């Protein structure tokens, strides 16, 4: 995977495969503390605690299909490559929370990449998913919720290509604003 947003997308599809109807994606960037943290939480069927170490094994899968579960080992590898921290919290019937923490400025940390594209793609194929996206950047927060967005759309279906293209651009703009706000402030101060 070239971007962290691809790992996030992969985690989201794991959640969907586990029957999740709600997914919460949180990204926290704190450049002073040198942290980029990703948390993906779902309400899927979860798994037994004793199975958690096993999902790190590429040849373990709980899925019915004969699939080799490469997603989690790939993410762990991305974390380990830059001495980050990785954790899976799981309970049967409650859901799974995956947490990955990276040193923000590490040279081997993959870029976050196209997260707005990842969100619109996820929603385009999963219209009934309740998704919450929270992005914190140095104390500022941007939040997107499908529930609120669907209310704004009224009787227009969320997954329409024209709506999804609009949403992708809207999210890209908002997230860029969030991450740029501080830099702009600095520019203003210096002149």
């Amino acid at each position: 995977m070239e971007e962290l947003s691809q790992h996030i997308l992969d985690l989201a599809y794991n959640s969907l495969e586990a029957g999740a109807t709600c997914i919460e994606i949180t990204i926290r960037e704190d450049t002073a503390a040198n942290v980029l943290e990703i948390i993906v939480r779902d309400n899927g069927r979860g798994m037994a605690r004793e199975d958690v170490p096993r999902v790190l094994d590429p040849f373990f899968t709980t899925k019915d299909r004969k699939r080799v579960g490469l997603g989690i080992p790939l993410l762990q590898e991305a974390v380990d490559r830059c001495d980050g921290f990785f954790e899976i919290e799981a309970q049967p019937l409650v859901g799974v929370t995956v947490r990955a923490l990276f040193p923000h400025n590490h040279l081997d940390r993959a870029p976050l990449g196209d997260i707005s594209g990842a969100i619109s793609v996820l929603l385009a194929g999963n219209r009934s998913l309740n998704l919450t996206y929270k992005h914190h950047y140095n104390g500022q927060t941007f939040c997107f919720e499908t529930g609120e967005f669907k209310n704004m759309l009224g009787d227009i279906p969320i997954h329409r290509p024209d709506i999804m293209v609009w949403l992708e651009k809207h999210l890209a703009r908002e997230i860029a604003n969030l991450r740029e706000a501080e830099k702009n402030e600095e520019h203003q101060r210096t002149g």
Partner: protein
Amino acid sequence: MKSIKELDELREKIKQEMSAREQSHEVIITVNMGTCGIAAGARDIVKTLLEELKERGLNEVALTQTACDGIHKYEPVLEVKKGTEKTTYVNVNPDKTREIVRKHLVEGEVVKEWTTPAE
């Protein structure tokens, strides 16, 4: 807020379109979003599809996704289902995706050279 005003305008436009046109979901496009698919660029394929479908006014086409890992060397895989006819395109990229929408969905012609060999 500029973008919210934009959304209101888009909503109005869609409402008019929706009442003018009968809903048809006869075309279903499926993209494999398993780990291999994502690693091979499936996200950009769906993004390109959304943009191209919007550009061509094909907003009623249903888009679905599977997360089952197929055969790595064929990813990204895109499947077009039109009624009972099913076509699987392999190793697609954004350019091929736009071409598939144009030829297959608009002109109704399967792009044979990008489909799986029939055994």
